[in-house]
């Protein structure tokens, strides 16, 4: 560690121009020898380091100097420090220039584009819902979009001429369609001919219960069809997820708990959830589930028609007639079912005000969703 050449008078510290000149010369020589960033840092530490740096040490002498000397020493120290810093900075730039290779590339130009596609918002929502229920041990099922009257209506407690059929205006096939259906196995099996496009995924309740004994815990996502003209809230095709839980002692309280937890997972941990009596032929008691408006938080706005609530799904306890249709013991087994419209969820979650956007496939819309 170089020591300041100070003329030592007992009790008095002297820093003269000669000493400073010597110090500058020593520093300049050392600086000229520096070739790398590392050496430069070492030199910086030696002169400007917080502890034991040569220039830094000057400042510690100020306090020890006689009062009439302090101002002069301080000025000298400042000048010196600025000079050292400037020299170091200049040298650092020179080192950087030295390092630049002749074949250097412009790393700031854009990289080669690697295209990434985006998932459709209906898929994003569907996969989110599927993962919630998969975590709770639900089996996820895939079912046919063409159905017969029995599975779509009759077994769901909607015999011919039932007025509830009006709630779901049906698209029929011109001729029955024979198709093979995938059940749990690895190969499809022949099934009775389809005569219509399913109006709801509830048909999957029947198909599953026909081939499985309780307990049941399933969700079945898929496209459904109604003879609705296209407008901002209607399309003749849309997407639903059906849920069904059957077992010993499954109650309406369990239905409330499950759907409350589901909606809080899907929307917000503090979402308000309301159950209101409703009517579906295949559940009883039936309910409509509402959540506190996601737009206004319940204060009332256009989205919730100033009610503060949004209808989000229909549900209820499985009607005993449905159990009877599939050969379950309606006395012993109880269960609940629910159906969620995926478009509805996506519209509320993402603030989409026109359902047609989901089917136009405009990339300016689709690219707003995650890859």
């Amino acid at each position, binding site marked *: 560690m170089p020591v300041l050449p100070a003329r030592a008078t007992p009790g008095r510290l002297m820093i003269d121009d000669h000493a400073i000149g010597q110090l500058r010369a020593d520093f300049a020589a050392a600086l000229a020898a520096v070739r790398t960033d590392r050496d430069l840092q070492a030199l910086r530490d030696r002169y400007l380091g917080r502890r034991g740096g040569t220039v830094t040490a000057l400042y510690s002498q100020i306090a020890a100097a006689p009062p009439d000397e302090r101002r002069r020493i301080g000025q000298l120290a400042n000048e010196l420090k600025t000079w050292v810093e400037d020299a170091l900075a200049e040298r650092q730039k020179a080192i950087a220039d030295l390092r630049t290779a002749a074949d250097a590339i412009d790393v700031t130009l854009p990289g*080669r*584009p690697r*295209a*990434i*596609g*985006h*998932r*459709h918002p*209906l*898929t994003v929502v569907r*996969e989110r819902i599927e993962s919630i229920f998969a975590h709770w*041990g639900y*089996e996820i099922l895939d079912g*046919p*979009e*063409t159905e017969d009257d029995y599975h779509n209506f009759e077994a769901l407690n909607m015999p011919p001429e039932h*007025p*509830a059929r*009006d*709630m779901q205006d049906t*698209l*029929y096939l011109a001729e029955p*369609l024979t*198709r093979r259906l*995938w059940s*749990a196995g*690895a*190969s499809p099996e022949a099934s009775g001919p389809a005569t219509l*496009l399913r109006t709801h995924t509830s048909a999957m309740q029947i198909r599953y219960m026909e081939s499985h004994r309780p307990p049941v*815990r399933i969700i079945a996502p898929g*496209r459904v*069809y109604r*003879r609705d003209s296209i407008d901002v809230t209607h399309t*003749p095709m849309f*997407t639903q997820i059906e849920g069904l839980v059957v*077992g010993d002692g*499954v*109650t*309406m*309280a*369990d239905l409330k*708990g499950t759907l409350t937890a589901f909606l809080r997972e899907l929307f917000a941990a503090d979402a308000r959830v309301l*159950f*209101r*009596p*409703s*009517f579906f032929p295949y559940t*009883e*008691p*039936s309910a409509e589930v509402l959540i506190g408006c996601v737009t206004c938080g319940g204060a009332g706005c256009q989205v919730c028609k100033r009610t503060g609530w949004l209808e989000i799904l229909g549900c209820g*306890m499985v*009607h*005993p007639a449905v159990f009877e249709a599939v050969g379950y013991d309606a006395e012993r087994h*109880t269960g609940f079912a629910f159906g969620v419209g995926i478009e509805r969820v996506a519209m509320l979650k993402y603030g989409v005000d026109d359902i047609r956007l989901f*089917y*136009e*496939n405009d*990339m*300016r819309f689709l690219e707003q969703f995650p*890859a």
Partner: protein
Amino acid sequence: MRVPVSWLAEFTEVAATPAEIGDALTRCGFELASIETVPDQGDGPGDTVLDFEITANRPDCLSIRGMAREVALAFRQPFEPRARRRLTPSPNPISLPVTIEAPALCPRYTAALADVRVGPSPPWLAARLHAAGIRAINNVVDVTNYVLVELGHPIHAFDLHQLEGPELRIRQALAGESITTLDGQLRTLTEGMLVIADRSRPQAVAGVMGGLASEVTLSTRTIAIESAYFAPAAVRRTSKRLELSTEASYRFERGADIEAPLVALARVCELLEEIGAGQVTPGFVDVYPTVRGENRVPLRASRVAQLLGQDVPAPEIERILRALGFALVTEPEASTVAWRVAVPSWRGDVTREIDLIEEIARHHGLDRLPVTFPPLTVSPARLDVRLERDAVVRRVAASTGFTECVTFTFIERSAAEPFADASELVAIANPLSETFAVLRPSLIPGLVESVAHNRRRERKDVRLFETGSRFTRTSGESRAIALAWLGSATGLHWSGTDRPADFYDMSGIVEQLGRALGVGVRLEPASSPAMRDGHAALIHASHARGSALVGLVGQLREDLAAAHGVPPAEHLFVAEIDLDAMAALVDLGEHVEVVPLPRHPSVVRDLSLVVPAGLPAATLRATMLANAPETLVNLVEFARYQGKGVPEGHVSLSFRLTFRSPDRTLTDTEVHRAAEAIVAALAAEHGARLR
């Protein structure tokens, strides 16, 4: 159902505000649609009208009386309909013979006669109807409508002198019969439709609409008042077939009250005289061949708790059901609390215990039920491998730059035809329009439309895919993925590497999907009405377990693309893969058996061949594989050249062959010999020679 509050007040004490009533009823299953203030026609104070949605199971609430019963219970007020006049039987039957010829469709028919002075209704009555959303016509018709709204029971009045006989026959329409209904429409009737006829012709479509011929007009002097019960299915069928839905048909098809006809008839008579519209002839007709007994349903308190997850105290159950008109008798024999419940005639929707439990849940309050979770009692099933497969396919498509679409399952017939024989198309019987006439036999038409949608919006580079079901008569319903690629292959870049996408970009994606699903992909030239000639291939997938034809890849025929608005100079590439056809081959890691890593070096040989230009690379490849030793572990085309140095009609194709043995280091000599054998075979079979 529009409910004027003043009308409600005739049945129960209304202390709550309209908003409170709306809220309370919404909580018991009658969703409030709106609250509206209607000014009185004259100087009166006006009225508040609550409009409720009534679910299909509650025709009894399509009436002021029904709604008042619910309001009374919700606010714990007595439900007390005003005392009404009852019809007294007359010793002389009225002079109107009534015959029910179809008792299954019309189980009950009642009627009375009145001499009337047709004119305008008094203002209070017109105002009530107006508030309820019904136009006033004349005092007689208005009275029938008033009773319809108040009691929910449809009434019809005939001009007696227009009825031939006069007599009424309730019968099925005869083939060829027709009727001009009150709306002026001439309607052709078919067998199975129920009509009210006089001696010779239909005078009303039963439960739907009256006929114009016997309409009550200003010149009507005597009326026959009909108050009947028609079978719901019969009315619904007729209403559907005539495409005619009325206030009456809406109620009858949901189920009217079989005990209501006489009550409603009495109320009509009372009102006619009260407003001075006429004088009722003493006596009435009531044809009711098979009297319906009271319906009794058992109810257990334990079952209520089992369904709702909460004990509802017996007094609470009794309070709710009694207020709704049910009569409860405790079952003394039962070991737990149980009742026999007599169902009132207006509640045709209540036929079993669960229906009663719903009534209890509605008025006990769903918000009072606890919040619990169903126990998981068995191990959850594993994920359906087909769903897993679809998810993999979607991820691969997205990661290669394709954005996911959802298009309609039904498309125009002309858009479908290039993709399937007309005989294969699955048509919709009642499509919304010709745009939605058939179920798609392929996902490609929908994708092309989406590509074009984006292209028309100045988007030049479009990569889209969709997964979904397709429909043909032979294959039924099958799951597929389709992809479409328009524009740039790599995207605009300063290095100038960008170029338009071509067939091999698309076939490369198909091969990549195959790798992701663990199957090999082989292409073979194909021709298809949808594809540009010479630019399409069939996709074969193969795996140790077998192989299958799974799809088509190529350039869409230019005129098909152009028809959607894709500029003719731009090439649109598409591919479609049948995921179900591949199902048996797909391996998502279930059957992997690891082979040891190679311990010996490989030897590489490049062969540049000159071959006839029309010879498919796959043919050369097959010959090479057939004539190669087992040590040939990889074979890849790496250069293709046509031009100077290669004879006309020929092409130079270069292959890189990699040889390796699992148990020793190959010698130069044996690799050389293997390569020579391959070249000899190529020369013999295809006239190929080394360049």
